[in-house]
């Protein structure tokens, strides 16, 4: 048998009811590179996490080398020769790289002496064509470096199967070419490589076979040599999807009469959590009536930019100007009073307070804004009325306003949070990854809310989902390594934008 791992009828349901894997079956062969292709949220990552023992399916089974395989943890997968490199590899911040490598080896049941390990690593570094500073602390590694270390670990373990989740997001086209060669070489040694991507051309240029996922299902498996890009795209997005994204039907001519600038960011420099400079001289402008997108691969300074704009992080240089007023030195409360609405990327714990009721979660955000819910003592009847109005803005049935916010689904929480912010009639809306973790249906509704709000306000959306930005933005700034690498106006050319993101 040529099959290394067989996935049979795997079904994964996340809390909240989202079906991430809908009876997926797939064979992974020895000595092949298999591309798992699909758009964001298609269920690719979930599937490889099932194989890595990190997600428990509600149904289905895995068969490894003809034997039933039920990984109860990542450790189990490691010991069976399966290595997964996540899109955002997680390391222990305080350990050194060498310690982290030794830890992984130990988990896999390998004990190796330090000197021999260092020699082996030096060999592999030559093979892979990069160097890693073994004594540096993990927190100081960039995401790209972390991925390289992960690759190194997989080879040190002599893994039989390697699963890579969107490994190319941090690579230049040149790096991608040599990486391709490396993966082919691994497959040539008889290993299986699963390459998760949402980029069609990558899938075709690396893989022997391409499995396309959409909405939690495998919708087709193709020999790479026998299928065209167009067909793959059709399978990825369904019959109409592709066109919706890249050349929107509802395309409108650029608005020539531009509104007043509401937000101006001028030569902003911001430090990140570890003292590194994360935002390096970013300038941008957002006018009333437009949706401005900030694209970029996660971790290129977007979060720091977001925090500086809403006042959570003090810039070391530069200015944030709101409606002509310099608010750089002002706290979030002041900016909120001036009409800034904030939609942070994490709903629970950043946008909403878990454990508090729906009414409380709406009322607190009004504290700095107005006194309609009371000066010192809260008028809870009034607060309730406001909550009812907010809930009425979205098409969601909230049965009990006194129930804790945790009783709502993720999608409803997100819509409620956005409605709460829009209720304040803001002049500027700053949103970060507003549809992260939502199913496609809810994402569409949320995007509608964001776009709709641009009639009365200026909207800035920072998102890692490029397709989303292409759909809703009037203008896109691309950030890479803390710098604006390009500003794009409609109609967008996705290729140029992607190149700016990785370059």
């Amino acid at each position: 048998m040529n099959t290394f791992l067989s996935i049979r009828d795997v079904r994964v349901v996340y809390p909240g009811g989202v079906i991430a894997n809908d009876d997926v079956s797939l064979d992974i062969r020895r000595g092949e590179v298999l591309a798992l292709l699909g758009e964001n949220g298609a269920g690719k990552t979930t599937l490889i996490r099932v194989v890595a023992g990190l997600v428990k399916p509600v149904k289905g089974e895995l068969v490894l080398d003809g034997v039933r395989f039920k990984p109860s943890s990542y450790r189990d997968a490691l010991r069976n020769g399966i290595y997964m490199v996540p899109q955002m590899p997680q390391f222990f911040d305080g350990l050194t790289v060498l310690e982290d490598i030794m830890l992984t080896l130990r988990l896999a049941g390998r004990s190796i002496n330090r000197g021999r390990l260092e020699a082996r690593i030096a060999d592999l570094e030559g093979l892979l064509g990069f160097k890693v500073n073994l004594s540096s602390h993990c927190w100081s590694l960039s995401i790209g470096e972390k991925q390289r270390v992960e690759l190194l670990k997989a080879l040190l373990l002599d893994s039989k199967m390697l699963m890579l989740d969107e490994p190319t997001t941090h690579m230049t086209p040149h790096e991608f070419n040599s990486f391709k060669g490396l993966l082919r070489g691994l497959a040539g040694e008889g290993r299986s490589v699963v390459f998760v991507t949402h980029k069609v051309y990558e899938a075709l240029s690396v893989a022997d076979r391409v499995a396309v996922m959409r909405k939690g299902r495998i919708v087709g498996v193709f020999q790479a040599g026998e299928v065209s890009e167009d067909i793959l795209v059709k399978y990825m997005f369904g019959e109409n999807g592709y066109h919706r994204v890249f050349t929107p039907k509802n395309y409108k001519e650029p608005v020539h009469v531009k509104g007043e600038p509401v937000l101006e960011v001028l030569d902003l420099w911001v430090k990140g959590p570890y003292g590194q400079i994360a935002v390096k001289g970013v300038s941008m402008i957002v006018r009333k009536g437009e949706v401005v997108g900030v694209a970029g691969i996660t971790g290129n300074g977007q979060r720091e930019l977001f925090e500086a704009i809403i006042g959570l992080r003090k810039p070391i240089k530069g200015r944030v100007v709101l409606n002509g007023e310099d608010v750089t030195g002002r706290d979030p409360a002041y900016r909120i009073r001036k009409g800034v609405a904030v939609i942070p990327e994490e709903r629970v714990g950043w946008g909403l307070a878990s454990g508090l009721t729906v009414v409380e979660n709406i009322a607190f955000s009004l504290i700095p804004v107005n006194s309609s819910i009371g000066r010192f003592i809260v008028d809870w009847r009034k607060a309730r009325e406001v909550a009812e109005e907010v809930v009425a803005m979205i098409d969601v049935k909230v049965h009990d306003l006194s129930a804790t916010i945790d009783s709502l689904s993720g999608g409803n929480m997100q819509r409620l949070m956005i409605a709460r912010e829009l209720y304040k009639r803001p002049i500027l809306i700053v949103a970060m990854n507003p549809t992260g973790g939502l199913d496609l249906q809810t994402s569409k509704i949320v995007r509608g809310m964001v776009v709709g709000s641009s009639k009365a306000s200026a909207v800035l959306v920072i998102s890692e989902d490029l397709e989303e930005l292409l759909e809703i933005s009037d203008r896109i700034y691309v950030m890479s390594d803390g710098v604006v690498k390009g500003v794009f106006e409609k109609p967008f050319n996705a290729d140029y934008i992607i190149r700016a993101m990785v370059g």
Partner: protein
Amino acid sequence: MVVVDYMSIAFITSIPIILAALGEVLVERSGRVNLGVEGMMAFSASISVAVSTLTGSPLIGLIAGGMAGVILSTVYTLTVIGLKLDQIVVGLIISLAGLGLADLISSAGYRVGYNIPHGSTLHNTLIVITIVLPPILWLILYRTPQGVELRAVGYDEHVARERGLRVDLIRAVTVTIGGLTAGIAGAYMALVLYNGRYFSGITGGWGWLAIGSVILGYWHPIGVAVAAYTIGILLTTKPLLTSELGLPPTLVTITPYIAVIIALTLVTIISRRKPSLIPPKPL
């Protein structure tokens, strides 16, 4: 000579703080904090006196004291690690309950037992253990795979669980060791420092000083031992400072506690300047 004398007396005095602090280092390195040190010390002080009275052996008293610490730490393991109750609440409860239970046991008639005399083999053994323990712990934490695992758990519990590290087991082990060292520390206070006597309030906040010295020493075994020793110097120089320098005794008594407060603020400022020194996340 006077200085040397004071330094060695200070060391003998600071042994319980050093031992308790070293146990707590392991606990906090594995990402938990056990605020029950004060109570574990008091409880084991009382138990050690009672057992040494009953058996006539200070050695058995000392061992029983260590076991008493382990018993209280098991309460922590079961409730915090097992039932996931709040670690702060449980730790403080252990402290308060330990102090009360200690008084209770001594009320049954065990106030004076057999002591461990200064200079005895047992005492010398304890001194040697206290001297060699910091470097040994440093070796374990930084040079063995088990130590790396322990620290990894302390840095990021979530990642550790995802990778399949036995987080709860590791923590149960460190908490138990912490109980043992706190227990021996308490027994040492009663059997050595107070000549085999127990009285209410015997620990006088030294358990808290131990926890303070963990932060002071920046979670590094050797640093923590030095910090605990420094606090011991402050505690022992009280008669010197009052008689020689004429400082009011109250002022001198409160110095170690004030010192811990100042140190807590300094440590934060230092770690702000040097982000590369990442402490574990116990609190």
